[in-house]
């Protein structure tokens, strides 16, 4: 390695200075708690008495626990439905918003508002809308002569109803990321393609998407990681019910820790989620990451 030039060195120092506040926050509020959680995962701790070292027994118990297995399946389902639909919708809307259409700013704002709202407030509002007996949605269905739908009342419907709210709530966030990517594409590239006679679809698939593939990839990773950790919406909307229908991973983790006073098991669950997310992310980097085109950056 060649020695850093004077300029690069100065830049590096400035860079570290810039990230110092964030790094400090990361250490205090993330890294230390993470380390504590890893240790607690090997203990039995009821929050009241001193933790007792139990080795891997929390992990063994969890792997045998049918509710734990169920919560893993529920979460995978959530991720598999949420991520593709949400990203595709956001991309479509971002492409539309990137053109000059009327009321562009108003529409953008409307998509951002749910994202900046509190998830619990959003969840509660939707439980009123979804309410099977007195809710707005079913009131409309009945008015137009259709049957009521048990949105949150039936185990077959509840999960999809929660996912729909999640997709809607964070659409704005993904739209912003995609818009930023789209605006990186130089106008000349697009114009050159038009001159060459490429159709809109060809331009989209051959030029736009490859050029913003780093952004697509980034969004995919962020979305997968975020969705694995879904908590507030099911917590506020269904409490994991009806029955076990929406009992996602983090909801069960929360219950284990704070309701059932099994903080050791809850910590072990957190560690396992970390591993699951780590493996998934590594998988995406290997499989999808290679095909990302970094020409623009």
């Amino acid at each position: 390695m060649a020695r850093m030039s004077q300029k690069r060195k100065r830049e590096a120092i400035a860079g570290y200075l810039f990230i110092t506040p964030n790094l400090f926050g990361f250490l205090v509020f993330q890294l230390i708690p993470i380390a504590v959680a890893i240790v607690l995962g090997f203990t039995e701790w009821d929050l009241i008495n001193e933790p007792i070292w139990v080795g891997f027994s929390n992990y063994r118990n969890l792997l045998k626990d049918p509710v734990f297995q169920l919560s893993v399946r529920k979460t995978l389902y959530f991720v598999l439905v949420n991520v593709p639909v949400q990203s595709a919708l956001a991309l479509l809307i971002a492409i539309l918003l990137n053109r000059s259409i009327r009321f562009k700013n108003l529409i953008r704002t409307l998509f951002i508002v749910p994202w900046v709202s509190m998830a619990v407030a959003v969840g509660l509002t939707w439980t009123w809308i979804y309410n099977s007996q007195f809710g707005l949605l079913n009131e409309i269905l009945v008015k137009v002569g259709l049957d009521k739908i048990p949105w949150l009342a039936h185990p077959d419907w509840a999960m999809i109803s929660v996912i729909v709210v999640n997709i809607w709530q964070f659409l704005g966030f993904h739209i912003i990321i995609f818009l930023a990517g789209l605006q990186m594409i130089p106008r000349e590239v697009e114009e050159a393609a038009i001159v060459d006679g490429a159709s809109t679809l060809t331009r989209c698939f051959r030029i736009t998407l490859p050029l913003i593939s780093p952004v697509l990839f980034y969004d995919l990773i962020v979305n997968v990681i975020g969705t694995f950790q879904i908590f507030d919406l099911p917590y506020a909307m269904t409490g994991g019910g009806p029955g076990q229908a929406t009992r996602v991973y983090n909801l069960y983790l929360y219950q284990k820790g704070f309701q059932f006073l099994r903080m050791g098991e809850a910590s072990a669950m957190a560690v396992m989620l970390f591993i699951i997310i780590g493996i998934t992310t590594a998988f995406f980097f290997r499989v999808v990451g290679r095909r990302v085109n970094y020409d623009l950056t």
Partner: protein
Amino acid sequence: MRKSIVLLVLLALVVASGTAGAQKVTLRYMFWDQNQQEAYAASIDEFMRLNPDIEVVMELAEWNDYWTKLTTGMAARNLPDVFWGHAAYFSAFVARGALLDLQPLIERDNIDTSIYYQSLLDFWSYEGAQYGLAKDWDTIAFFYNKDLFDAAGVPYPSDDWTWNPQDGGEFVRTLQLLTLDDQGRNALDPNFDPKKVVQYGLGDIGGANMQAGWLNFVWMNGGTGVLDKPYGSKLVMNEPECIEVLQFWSDLVNKYHVAPPPEATVAGGSPWDLFTAGRFAMVPAGSWMLTAGRSIEAFSWDVVGMPWGPAGRYSAFNGLAHNIYAQTPHQEEAWRLLEWLEGYESQKIVAEYGCVFPAIGELVPTFLEAYAGRDPENVAVYNDMAENTGTWPMHVNWNEIFDIIQRELDMMLQGFVDAETTVANIEMQVGHLLQ
């Protein structure tokens, strides 16, 4: 010279305030019911007047956050010194050593515990130690909206009304007359459309509502309840009397259509909101809801006792007490506060506000007087309901057990499974928690 005098005075002030501050102890007091805030603030003001060396800070945490706050507080070794306890959570806390044993203090100070109802004291004893005295007690009855009864031309329920699990009896007939679809047809009308109900006879019958809901009916049908005995290790929900009642409870929703499925009241605002909005003609309500009922202005209302079942009339009987955090640095002061709050003078102050039935029997008339000349007229039925009471299920793993029971019962009430399967599902899941 002048400068040094000023310095000396300042120094004296600092020392004086320092020692005064050291003498004054601040106690944190946590509770969950806003309806009782005013009454307890009055009592605590009086306590602080009598005990100038103690400062009490009241912290209100709503029921839904209350227990999470307590448990996280324990983890952080930062718990309020004195706080309200509830039978449903007591067993988990006491078994883990979070609460202070009061027995030595009771004996030291010769506290006369005979002024309290014995069954209330029993709630707070565990393995021979006593963790609370008694703050109040409550029973269950039904609140009903008189205006909706008048509009439907149904006579108000009488104190000797009845129910049975086979056809529901007088109880279900009353509810059917009070359940209306969007065309104003009641649930007995052959053209009644159960999919378009705008007003239900009954609300708040979810699986979570054990205390004011299904458990009372299990007892009234001759069933034991949930566990064979307090801290018992046997689930007795498979008794035929219990299964019969759970099926009846499901029928209220799925067969008679006189009550909404639990999801509709969990997600659609609380059952209480729907009652005060005139969507429910009746709700089962603990006596602690009486203060909340005072704010009802849209209609006139009253209370009626539980309907008589095949095995008579029963109510859950529960009481709160103040608990002291085992690790408090101010044990002596906390005990003085607890002694005051459970004592005669404080319970008298609180009873005069009419919030909750005092744990001291002698003060019950004082409490009832607070309701003279206002709704509900029959407030005394809560006192009658205390005649026959069932035993509250207690278990060190109760939170986990109840989470399972509540989920499975809700599935049943939504109409997906029958009572027998539900109980079998519960049994299967709670087995390892009961050992």
